[in-house]
């Protein structure tokens, strides 16, 4: 299994509080992604990174920010959590879609916003 660790795995928080999810990889892959999974919507891309300090928006980036100060860590921040951000969040890594064409996923972080 690819070395991807997401933390926390489960979190319950209240509306309006900030939340940070962490994705840590030991594979030294260049690309890292944050997706959210919701019933009826499948997986939707929030943000992705193509290198240290290089990030770009995905399909559903509003209300989320990301940072990547080291190759191995990709942080997803909800500045002020809302109930609509209750979801399961998945981190994924890749050597580059043109290289292997494969994403490796973490085990997910389940976030509940009350």
């Amino acid at each position, binding site marked *: 299994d690819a070395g*991807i660790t997401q933390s926390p795995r489960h979190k319950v928080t209240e509306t309006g509080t900030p939340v940070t999810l962490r994705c840590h990889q030991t594979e030294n892959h260049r*690309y890292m*992604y944050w*997706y959210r999974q919701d019933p*009826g*919507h*499948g*997986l*939707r*891309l929030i943000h*992705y990174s*193509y290198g240290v300090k290089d990030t*770009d928006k*995905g*399909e559903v980036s509003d209300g989320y920010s990301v940072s990547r100060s080291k190759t191995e860590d990709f942080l997803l921040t909800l500045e002020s959590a809302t109930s609509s951000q209750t979801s399961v969040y*998945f981190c*994924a890594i*890749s050597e*580059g*879609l*043109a290289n292997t*064409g*494969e*994403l*490796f*996923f*973490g*085990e*997910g972080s389940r976030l509940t916003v009350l």
Partner: protein
Amino acid sequence: AQSVAQPEDQVNVAEGNPLTVKCTYSVSGNPYLFWYVQYPNRGLQFLLKYITGDNLVKGSYGFEAEFNKSQTSFHLKKPSALVSDSALYFCAVWDMNRDDKIIFGKGTRLHILP
């Protein structure tokens, strides 16, 4: 913009019968196409990919997929279903002429009936 559609939310197949999970896509350039599988409370796992070459692609666990450019489809198939194949299946597309973003479909839940 690239997109992918999985027209069936759920597919039920008797064990031992052939199975098909449907996927259609839309991209402006040349597509990379993928299938991923998700077991309960786990992240997604790569099954197979199409980049170029033979239209019939073979992947993990006996699965295969057929690329049809004229119908813009990439259906997942298996000749003989197993109960252990029951899971959530995602089709995904990457437009190789754009950036490194993979877009996923909404998923199809496959139930293999004993």
